[in-house]
């Protein structure tokens, strides 16, 4: 016979998986917008708002589960981690919206070199997929791989920042400024998304082992 708590935990799991799909879709849409020049701010805003509402729903429901069932051990760690994971996914939505907002503010940038952002975007999308998979499978070992990917994302961001600030580029044209500013901001948002992907896998590590991730 299933425990009453299990019914609640299943509901939390489903809410988190709904958030995972929305979070991934929102980041994908924002990056597609950058690559193709299609303006998707309204749609991404909608995703972001849905994620925010779902995060509140997870917070309310997990609090209710604690009050009703006073869970312990792995159940408690799962609930506690789901609150953090829900926050992480809501941040994915927010950063995706920030990317869309930057693109709309700056306007069309078809002639910019987008290769660096596209490269980092590929890594970050892989990180999102890995973090969601680690959550589905409760795989505690994904966090190590994600932290290595996060290091490469950080390095890419810093190298681009140095490139933009290099003395040889002291005077930029207007179109170059728009390219650099948009790329730099988007790289920064991607770098933050990468961090949150790592935090999600940290949560999975905590659920499984009760220990913080070694990196933390």
């Amino acid at each position, binding site marked *: 016979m299933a425990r009453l708590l299990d019914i609640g935990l299943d509901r939390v799991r489903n809410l988190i998986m709904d958030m995972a799909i929305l979070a991934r879709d929102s980041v994908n849409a924002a990056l597609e917008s950058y690559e193709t020049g299609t303006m998707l701010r309204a749609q991404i805003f909608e995703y972001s708002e849905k994620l925010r509402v779902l995060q509140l729903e997870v917070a309310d429901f997990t609090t209710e589960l604690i009050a009703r069932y006073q869970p*312990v051990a792995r159940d408690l760690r799962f609930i506690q981690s789901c609150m953090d994971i829900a926050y992480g996914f809501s941040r994915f939505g927010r950063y995706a919206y920030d990317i869309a907002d930057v693109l709309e503010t700056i306007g069309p940038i078809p002639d910019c070199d987008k290769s660096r952002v596209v490269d980092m975007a590929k890594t970050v999308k892989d990180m999102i997929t890995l973090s969601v998979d680690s959550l589905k499978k409760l795989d505690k070992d994904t966090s190590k791989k994600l932290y290595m990917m996060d290091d490469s994302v950080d390095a890419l961001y810093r190298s681009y920042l140095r490139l933009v600030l290099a003395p040889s580029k002291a005077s930029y044209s207007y179109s170059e400024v728009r390219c650099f500013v948009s790329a730099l901001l988007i790289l920064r948002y991607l770098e933050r998304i990468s961090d949150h992907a790592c935090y999600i896998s940290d949560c999975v590590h905590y659920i499984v082992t009760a220990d913080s991730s070694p990196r933390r």
Partner: protein
Amino acid sequence: MEELIREQEQEIGKPLEGIDKYKVVIRNINGWFGTKQALKNINLNVKEKTVAAFIGPSGCGKTTLIRCLNRMHEMTPGARIEGEVLVDGQDIYDRSMDPVIVKRRVGMVFQKPNPFPTMSIFDNVAAGLKLNGIKDKKLISEVVEEGLRGAALWDEVKNELEKPGMSLSGGQQQRLCIARALALQPEVLLMDEPTSALDPIASSKIEELVRVLKEHVTIIIVTHNMQQAARISDSTAFMYLGEMIEYGPTNQIFKNPEKELTERYISGIFG
């Protein structure tokens, strides 16, 4: 399940180091009712002025174990134990130990409040003193007040000490029993499901009391209420089928138990 128990059993029963740090040391305790073994090689240490909780499903041996800690188990016909229970390093089962003195040093509060039905509130608390030959009325009055204060009952009964103990509410009766135990100034207080017959308000008063009492007394409590164990104890022991499956800091037992069997029990997967 049995294989799991065997596996976990091997890690329990390791030699105890630094026993002088502990108020109560239970060493290799085995207990029987007739031919039925109720306790199997229990080892456990309780630090002074802490609260230890025993949890586990019905029939796992919690009450039997706690009754071994002040020699009450042997009062049951056909019951016997082997092993040692040290209080401050002295084996309470040593031939030289007087069982009456053991019971004075290690007090007990039971599941159902059991005030002496024909006695007043005052006499209930004073009973143990009188039985121990103390006749000084002033001293007895002081100790009764101290006991009732210690049990957080004084303010509620100070003007009606001559009323029958049975006239009190269930929660007050249980605190009266605690006062009765405290009057003998025990070093260790055993509590066998002390709140199971009480309503939530009375239960929370007992829990608050336990937190205060542990400043002076070492407390060992048997409880079926895991949340209660989590709230009030410093260490928790999980027992199953007469065996000590896991014993450790309460925080660790409820957040990250080492044994799968413990996790399954506290998570409500069996029991």
